């Protein structure tokens, strides 16, 4: 399964990034540069939509953490939208990432948190 990344600019400083497919070694490598270039910008608010991610390995989590940290250092903020994706939710909870980067099952709640 291929791994894809796309985005929508909701407003000047608010971007929704959607990732789909397997975030394993190959998949994370395939989108790493684009993910960073889309996510990390001064004062940007970002929702990362993981609802269509079928597999989330530690290398994918590493990429999310790196970009969230870099974004935070530039005055921005990242939140994660997982919807009903139980597998991804379980992985993020098992590794404690949900306590470091806000994670939401509800799209509207994730937008609100990103803009807060």
């Amino acid at each position: 399964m291929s791994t894809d990344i796309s985005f929508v600019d909701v407003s000047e400083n608010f971007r929704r990034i959607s990732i789909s497919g397997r975030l394993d070694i190959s998949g994370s490598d395939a989108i790493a540069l684009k993910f960073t270039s889309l996510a990390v910008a001064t004062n940007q608010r970002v929702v990362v939509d993981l609802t269509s991610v079928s597999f989330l390995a530690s290398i994918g989590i590493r990429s999310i953490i790196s970009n969230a940290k870099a974004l935070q250092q530039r005055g921005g903020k990242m939140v994660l939208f997982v919807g009903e994706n139980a597998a991804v939710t379980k992985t993020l909870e098992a590794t404690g990432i949900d306590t470091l980067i806000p994670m939401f099952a509800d799209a509207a709640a994730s937008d609100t948190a990103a803009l807060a």
Partner: protein
Amino acid sequence: MAASVVNPIAELSIPANTEEVRRASAWLELTCLERGVPPDEISRLDLCLNEALANVIGHGGTSIRAFPIRLHVDVHRNQTNSEAIVTVSDSGAPFNPLANPPKSRPKTLAEAEPGGLGILMIRKLSDNQSYRYSNGNNQLIFSVRWPKVQQ
């Protein structure tokens, strides 16, 4: 009652490179499906296998490339439970990834280091983990269990 083996042990050998990890995942899924392992348990094993292979390939040193990485899967059932056991054997330098206690979790994003999650995931997502060094090979073993469905 003693546990019974569902099918013969399944085996796969792969070269130690990252391009082979997806092939290993596909093999694991098919092997587990053939042995009646539920989808949620296959997902847990798949994540653990990915982390184990990433560790071996990334940190196994030059000797890791001398011989293939060998994967074994076997499934046992008894009257109440089933268990799927995966063994990952490699020829790298002796290294027990389970020897160190889990790191304390960062409290903030600023404190977080974007690495070291692989072993944590294996610990959290599998029901049992062990390591041994035998005949010049590291062997990392992890398993998942699920209850027998009442008919």
